[in-house]
Structures are given as structure tokens and as C-alpha cells.
């Protein structure tokens, strides 16, 4: 019980820290969102029009009151779930923009993460089961090499080969220009087609961590006394590999996985920017470069909440999966 109280206190404290950080970042920055918007519009080869800067500044509105008052107001707004209006998508609200992009990210990265995890765990188990065999070498070395390819570079090559040269898949975006977003079969299949390349890039680089982690953990747990005793007890090899090797080895991977799922929102900046995917990562990148503080703050908050919740779930999950977990100790 106390454990949960502690976890919850940590959750709240971290959230507060993230929210406060979000509040401070824009206020510590040089530059002015209005200018950023106008100069981006003009491009570097044209003079910016002070009249337009002025109009945008009026449009966006300036916060008033002392820093403390602003902070209190801001906390109140965040508590109400009111993140304000996006600067770069004025007059659309931040909530609207996040609503537009969240699902794309969650589906693309979520699905590939799950597949990576499953594939990685299976391959890792296989490698450990056939330790020091050729299978093992192929799996570990192969995944090492594929897994270390720089993601964005791999993505470029995939686009070039499969989208531009072979034209098998669309080269960018989350869906075609001609389709109408919705839950129609037409649109969904279009979206799937668009997701093949980014998903491939993610799947090539994704499983390595799980493979290596699983393999090493399992090699270790198979070397322990209880696995030896299981062998002495005459249990079938496969059962030993599964219940004495994999079952124990998967525990840290499962928590790792929960955390990785929580990190989805944060880890997609590169994917989405290479593939022009209409997700939250690219939105964040745009928010950052446009000084779209409200949007940035909200995305940060969302990602932090995601990671926190995932961490929390990972802890709970660990408690469920591993009867040994000593709750009073883990903080």
C-alpha cells in the first residue's frame, strides 16, 4: 500500500516538475513566436513586415500579470485540460491538433513496437536456446548490424528504393491526398499502404534490444541452479528453456517493453520527420521550430504522462509477473 502511495507521490511530483518545466521553457527563450511565424512565412530572402508581426502578436495575445500569477493561471488551465490555442495552427486549439496526430503515432509506433518486442523476444529465446550454434551467431550478429543502422538513413534508402525507384509504396505521408480520413475501408487500406515503409524501417531497427536482452538474460537464467536442478529432475529440455529460461528472462524485458511503449510519443520525431508522417513527433518538431509554445507544452506533458503511466504499469506488471518483487524497496 505504502508502495503505491510512494509511486503516486512520485507520479504527481514528476508531473508537476514537467508542467513547471513546460511553463518555464518558453519564458526563458529568446525570440518571439510572432516573429518566428512571420519570418518563416516570408522565407529568408524577403524582408519581414513589422505590420504583420504586430498583427500576429495581437492575434496570439500576450499573457498578463506577474510571473507567479501567470503560473497559477497556467496550472489552472492545465488542470482543466485547457492547453490553449496553437500558435502555428491558429485558431485551432492544441487539443484539436493533438487529437489529429495522436492516433497516427500510437498506431504506427505502437504496432511496430509490439511486433518488434514479440519478434525480438522470440528470436532472443531461440538464440539462447541454441546458444553458440550458427543460429545464435546469425541472430545476434545479424540483428546487431541491422539494429545499428541509423534510422533516418535507412529510411531514406527505403524511400529511394521502394517508393521512388520501384514505386511499390507511397514515398511519404500517412495517407493519400485523394482520400477522406475516416474509418472507411478505402482509407484504412490507403493508410496501411503508407505505413509499410516507416513500419519496415522501425521493424528493422527495433528488435535488436529485445533480442540481445532476452538472449543474455536467458543464457544467464539457464546457467542458474534451478535450471540445473530442473535438468536433474528430468524435465524436458524445451520445458526448461521455457519455464526456467524464458519465463524468468522475459521479466526485465516486459518492464522494458512497458517503458518503451510509454516512450512511443517521444521517440517518433525522426521517423515522422523522414516520412512526413502526420503524427505527434513531427508536430513537436514543428512546434519547437515555430516557437509554438502551447503546442510544445502539451506534447511534452502528454509524453511525460505517457512515460509515467507506462513506468507505473511496468512496476505493477513486474509485481504481477515476478512473485519475488519486494515492494517496500523498489522506488
Amino acid at each position: 500500500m505504502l508502495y503505491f502511495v510512494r509511486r503516486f507521490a512520485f507520479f504527481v511530483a514528476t508531473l508537476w516538475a514537467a508542467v513547471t518545466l513546460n511553463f518555464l521553457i518558453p519564458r526563458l527563450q529568446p525570440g518571439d513566436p510572432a516573429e518566428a511565424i512571420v519570418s518563416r512565412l516570408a522565407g529568408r530572402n524577403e524582408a519581414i513586415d513589422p505590420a504583420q508581426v504586430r498583427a500576429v502578436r495581437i492575434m496570439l495575445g500576450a499573457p498578463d500579470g506577474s510571473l507567479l500569477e501567470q503560473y497559477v493561471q497556467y496550472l489552472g488551465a492545465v488542470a482543466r485540460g485547457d492547453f490553449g490555442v496553437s500558435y502555428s495552427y491558429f485558431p485551432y486549439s492544441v487539443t484539436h491538433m493533438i487529437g489529429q496526430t495522436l492516433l497516427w503515432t500510437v498506431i504506427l509506433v505502437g504496432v511496430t513496437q509490439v511486433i518488434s518486442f514479440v519478434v525480438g523476444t522470440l528470436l532472443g529465446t531461440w538464440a539462447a536456446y541454441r546458444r553458440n550454434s550458427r543460429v545464435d551467431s546469425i541472430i545476434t550478429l545479424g540483428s546487431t548490424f541491422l539494429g545499428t543502422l541509423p534510422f533516418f538513413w535507412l529510411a531514406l534508402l527505403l524511400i529511394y528504393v521502394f517508393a521512388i525507384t520501384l514505386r511499390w509504396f507511397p514515398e511519404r505521408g500517412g495517407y493519400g491526398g485523394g482520400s477522406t480520413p475516416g474509418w472507411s475501408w478505402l482509407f484504412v487500406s490507403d493508410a496501411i499502404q503508407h505505413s509499410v515503409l516507416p513500419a519496415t524501417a522501425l521493424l528493422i531497427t527495433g528488435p535488436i534490444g529485445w533480442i540481445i536482452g532476452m538472449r543474455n538474460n536467458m543464457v544467464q537464467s539457464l546457467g542458474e541452479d534451478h535450471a540445473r536442478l530442473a535438468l536433474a529432475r528430468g524435465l524436458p529440455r524445451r520445458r526448461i528453456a521455457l519455464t526456467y529460461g524464458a519465463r524468468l528472462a522475459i521479466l526485465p524485458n516486459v518492464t522494458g517493453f512497458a517503458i518503451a511503449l510509454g516512450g512511443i510519443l517521444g521517440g517518433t520525431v525522426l521517423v515522422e520527420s523522414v516520412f512526413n508522417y502526420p503524427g505527434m513527433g513531427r508536430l513537436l518538431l514543428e512546434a519547437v521550430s515555430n516557437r509554438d509554445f502551447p503546442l510544445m507544452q502539451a506534447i511534452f506533458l502528454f509524453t511525460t504522462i505517457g512515460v509515467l503511466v507506462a513506468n507505473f504499469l511496468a512496476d505493477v506488471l513486474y509485481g504481477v509477473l515476478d512473485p519475488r518483487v519486494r515492494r517496500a524497496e523498489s522506488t
Partner: protein
Amino acid sequence: MALLEVENLSVTYAPRDAPVTRAVQDVSFRIREGEFVGLLGESGCGKSTLGNGILRLLSPPARISGGRVVLDGVDLTGADEERLRGLRWTNLSTVFQSSMNSLNPVLRIEAQFAETFAAHRVGEEVGARVVELLRMVSLDPGVLRAYPHELSGGMRQRVALALALALRPRLVLLDEPTTGLDVVVQRNILDRLATLRHELGFAVLFISHDLGTVLEMADRVMVMYAGEIVEDRPAPDLVREAQHPYTRGLLGSYADPRSAEVRVSYIPGRPPDLSVEQPGCRFTPRCPYAEDACGQRRPELRPDDGGLVRCLVAQDGRLPRTPAGAGPGLPVFVGFPAAAGLDRSADPPPEQAVGDPVLLVDDVTKRYTTRRGLRTTSVDAVRGVSLALRPGRVTALVGQSGSGKTTIARLVTGVERPTSGQVRFTAADSTTEVRVDRLRGRALRDYRRHVQMIFQDPFSALNPTRTVGYALSRPLVNYHGLRGPAVRERAAELLESVGLAPAGQFLDKLPHQLSGGQRQRVVTARALAPEPEILIADEPVSMLDVSIRAEILELLGKLVRTRRLAMLYITHDLLSARLLADEVLVLNHGDLVEQGPTLEVVGAARDDYTRLLLDSIPNPFSAARRPG
């Protein structure tokens, strides 16, 4: 036909980076149906390797390099994986030493029984059978629902035993099954085992380095030295008249603390390096009876006097007869209370005048509060304990595991503060009393110049990355302000004083390059470096082989006498307390239950708990131990 036949079994370790170690060489023996065979030997002599070889559980870099293991007519060494699997557990089961790790932590006990039955397609009335098994090891069926970590060490050990018997195997291999367990629990399990064997009639190969236990339990005892079986003989014969000098040395290091006079001897030196080929008898360098031929000719294991022995001298019948208790020609350590006589503590003799106490522990209580979830539980680790330490005298603190012994050591040394009560210290050269329970920072450091501690575990008390010289130099630099070459000189002196000579060769060694006994001496030397007045020794010999134990005890006894140290000797081993201490305090669950001169306490215990402790000591010399 014998149940198990081991023929010329050899096992080698061939790691890539080290020379090949022949851990087991040419070992042959048989075990009959229902027989209880003990395998005895010092640490590292190859007992576990032999056991794993029989079970075919060796994993690289170990492999069987020769010989056969035949179980009930089936050659295990040649059997394929599937064949082996069928034989395992139904015919040959085992209990490992490490009860902590031998059960799957994420499966309930129930499931582990179930999978064992399932693997061998035993379907009938599994549930009832498991309950019956647990009853046999005196466990409540409730434990079936538990995970291993929810059980205590003793319970896990009993589960492991029940599991080992689940398929009614014909042979059970027990590799140090009770090491690390508390004396009382250990006794309990061994008693269970004896009863079960009578009920079920399985044969046992019992591996241990604990002489008392093996001798008490086994019908026949094999003694292993440096990878070879050196003696094989029925237990009563062995106790009466061991034929191998090594066995005699081992037996000499053991004595019954309850007897009026206690003499123990020890075998100097260490076992040989198994990776180096050595002609002749391997025990030669340590053997008091060694002759020229021993160094040249390798003895065979030959029948001799109702058993087997591997000794040229013994085979020629030239080994002198000796009573059990001490091997002649071996250094003997006689506990001085016994030598000084019974009446000494009641009326201390003037020549050994008992000084004023340097340390007084006055009615201390230590309460630990642990929080687990919302519940807080508090344990009184120590309750109202008072004691005094005097120069030149050894006070032993004995008690079961968890009785609060280490807690007292921590209170006395200022590591921990008492919840109530006082710890007072008066230096020999001053009259001012120091309240130890209030010290902190600098004052505490100053205090530790006077009070030092010898740690229980010589393997963890030395930093593996630091040389012996470094370890010794720190107190010298900190307390005596020595600098430069003087430090090294003084460190060398200290090493010599604990019998590590020539000191030069040890100063630059790292702990792993030392044997357990050598490490323990280094730890002792470090504790002596500040020239303390009080020495707290927390189970300083529990981790060591019997033969080294006596050696260290002798060293400690000598130090107390020559330096007039006040010593608190903490142990759960009554034999060593009997050997070393003037006075014994018995602790039970934080309470001091008995206190008095050693012989009085050991000889005529008044408290039930003390008697329980005494009764838990294995008694191989008692003829009445086995029916029939």
C-alpha cells in the same frame, strides 16, 4: 549387484584461459541399495564435481575425461539425452547445496511438484502424494501455494528434500544439503532425513565437509583429497581407527565440546594445485608420516583393515595407532579453559589477574523497525543485554542465527546505536569513560583505534581490488600516522605476527590469490594494526575448513594472551567457543539466557535453549547414535 557403480571416473576442467584442472581423478566406488555413504573432504577437493559427474550435470569447461558411471546396470556416461531424462529423478535424484536458488522463483511449489510428476508421466493421485511428501518433511500442505521466496531457508531445504523423494528414487545425492543453515534447523533436517531413509529405504550419497555430520549420518565414509578418494571405510571403523594420515588430520580437528578435555589438531598447509601434475602421493607435503617413497610412487586405493586406503605407509602397516581426537605429529591446539581447570573463572588465579572491564554493555536494547507496506513491524534484536569485556579474557557469545549476536557487535563497535541502555568504554591508559553509544564522526574514528573487528567472512572482508599491503596500510596511516616505507615495514611485521611469513611475498598479493585461512589472517592482522584493546570477532571461522579453523583459533588465543586483548568471540559453534573462551553468553532471540564460565555452561547447561544448542551438535563418537 551394486546400485551405483563408479569406475575410474575422471573429470577435468579445461577453461580456455587457465591450465587444465583434473578435479576428479580415477575415482571408483559402489553404493549398494539402501546404503548411506558419506563423502568427506576439504573445500575444493572435487566433491561437487564428482557429484555433478555422476548426475551428468557438468557443463563446459568441465567434462568427463574417463571412466563410467553405471546406475542399476545402465551406463549413464554413454546414455543419450532422452534415456538420461527417463532415468533422472526416478532412479537418481539430488538436493543441491544452495537451497536459495534451486527452486524456480516464479513457480509455486505446487507447480514444481506437478511438473516433476508430469515429466515422468506419473498421473496417479498426485495431490495426495505431494501432501504425503510434505508431511514426511514436516511441512504444512499450505506451502504448496507459496512461492519459494515466501519460505525460510530451512523450509525451502525441506521442500527440496521432499521434491527429491517425490518419485521414490533409489539413490539420492545430497551435496552439502545443510550448509548455511542454522544449527538447530540443520539438526532438524538431518533427523528427518534419517527417519525418511528408514521409512523409504533409498540409498544416499552425502557430500559434506562437515565431519561431525557425515560421521554421524553415514554407514560408510569416503574421504576425498585433491580429486582422489584416499580412504573408504565404514563410519564406526573410521572414527575408531582412520588409516589415512589425512583422515586422521581431519578427525583430529574435530572434538566434542561437551567432553571434559578438548584437544584439536590441524593439518598445516593447503591442498595442492590440481592443475599441476605431481608424482607420488598428493598429501606428501602436508603429511607428518611421509617417507621418501611417498614423493615418488603413487599409492593405489587398496583394501586394508575392512576398508580401502590410499597410503603407502598405511598399506605397509607402519602407521602408528592413535586414539581419535588428535593426530600425532600434527600441531595441537588445546583450549586453555580446559587446561586451566574448572575452577578458574570462579576464582581467577592471581597470575592471570582479571583486570577491570574495558567495555561495559549495560542493559542495552536494540529495536529495529521495518516497514513493509503499511504495516510496520518492530523486532527487538537485542533485549536488555549486559556484559563486560576484560583484558586478557575471551567472552564467547553463542546463539542461533538471528539471535542478535551481530547486532551486539555493531552496538559495541559504534556502527549502530542502542535504542536504550549504554555502552561504556574506558581506555587502559585513562580513567575517563567514553559513552560509545553517543559517538559520531571523529570521535568514533578515535574510538575505533581501540576497538577493532574481525569480520565473519574473510572472502568479503577484503576488497578484491586492493592488495594485502594496501589493506594493512590504511589503519597504520590513519591511526599511527606512519608514512612512506615505514608503513610497509610495519605491515610486514603484522603479517609475520599472524604467521604469514615471509611477509614480503604476501604484501603485494590480491585477496583472491590467498587461501581462506590466509585471508582470515590478513583480516586479523588488519584488526590488530591499530593495536586495539578490544577485539570483536564475529564468527571468524565459520566459513573455513575444519583444519584451518583450529589454526586460526590458536592464533586468536595466543593474541589474547600475549597482548592482553579483551575479546568478544561471536559464534554459533560451541566447539570453538569451548576452545577459546573463558566465559560464554548464550543468546536466544535477543535475550541473554545463560551466562557463565565456559565449562560450566557447556558441561551443565541450566537453560533449555542452551541444551537444545548442545544437542544439535552432531555426535559421531556416541556409539548409541544408530539403532542396530
